[in-house]
């Protein structure tokens, strides 16, 4: 029963080999979907290209359906999976700062790596920027720590927060994604085409 490495079914020595393989597929899928182009990515914020919305939400919907279905069938134990912990204000403020970085740079860290791999010099500058940003965060950590460690709700899920059945939520989430896809196509038809 999964997860395989935490349950000792695959020995931990394989961890790094698997990490490399997963990374290769991750990078391949991102690049092949067009995520190595900042101008394509930024399109989602100006309405001329919705690849980010489509890839990102399709992936989230497929993953959450798949994981909950595997749990339902007994192939994976969801309680053993790592749930990204909720530090509410750190998540909100961090997200806002990342959004600003996204609209300025046109990349997120993962997509910038794909762009670096195919030779985009602007992505290399972005990567150096990330290193500087991490450095500044770490150096000023003592000032940031109250925000970073505050409002800790632990590893909660929307099932706890909204008091909704996970299956109902996943159904509604999928509906929202489909509606968003339809609307995005309507918007794209109205917005002036951008060539890059």
């Amino acid at each position: 029963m999964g997860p395989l490495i935490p349950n000792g079914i695959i020995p931990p020595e394989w961890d790094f080999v698997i990490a490399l393989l997963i990374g290769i597929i991750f990078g391949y899928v991102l690049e092949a979907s067009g995520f190595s182009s900042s101008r394509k990515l930024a399109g989602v914020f100006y309405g001329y290209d919705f690849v980010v919305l489509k890839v990102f939400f399709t992936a989230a919907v497929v993953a959450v359906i798949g994981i909950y279905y595997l749990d339902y069938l007994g192939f994976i134990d969801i309680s053993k999976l790592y749930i990204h912990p909720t530090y509410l204000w750190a998540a909100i403020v961090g997200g806002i700062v990342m959004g600003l970085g996204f609209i300025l740079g046109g990349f997120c860290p993962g997509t910038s790596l794909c762009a670096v791999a195919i030779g985009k010099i602007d992505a290399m500058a972005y990567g150096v920027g990330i290193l500087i940003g991490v450095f500044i965060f770490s150096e000023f950590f003592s000032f940031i720590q109250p925000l970073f460690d505050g409002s800790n709700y632990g590893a909660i899920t929307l099932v706890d927060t909204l008091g909704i059945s996970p299956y109902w939520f996943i159904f509604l989430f999928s509906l929202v994604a489909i509606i968003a896809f339809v609307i995005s196509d309507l918007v794209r038809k109205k917005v002036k085409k951008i060539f890059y």
Partner: protein
Amino acid sequence: MENKVKNKHVYWNPYFGGFMLGLLLIFTFYITGRGLGASGAFKSTVVTFVDDVAPTHASKNAYYEQFIINGKSPLNTWLVFETLGVLIGGFLSGALGGRLKLYIQHAPNITSKKRLFVALLGGLFFGFGAQLARGCTSGAALSGMAVLSTGGFVTMLAIFGSAYAFAYFFRKNWI
């Protein structure tokens, strides 16, 4: 007509790409019990650099200190190997798609120099925010949403909400 040639369909169908990414995410959770990530490797790089240049300074800092284990390089983590894979995978896809080219991509309204400066600044903000939120679009938003983490959804809404809110002010950089 020239424009059509420039924008010809060279990428995967986005729904196919998303489906593949979703399958990969399920596979990753099934094997490792965790999701994907990208900003973690940048953090490990900074921690390693600071630990090499100023080890006492690093050990006194509450943030670096938690990633430094005696006798073990901070680069010896799952995410660093995964990130090496991302570079290889991105290169393979770009090579097969005929997209390997060393250049600065920017909108016609801005200069290469400005694009590099804005990209650097964008990276700086994203790197900072990803530390604060304990993950980026991959580690916090996407992997969080895959297991219905409340924080994952909050981070995702904050990233996209903020980017849409700021988009108007930076439109000249893109369109």
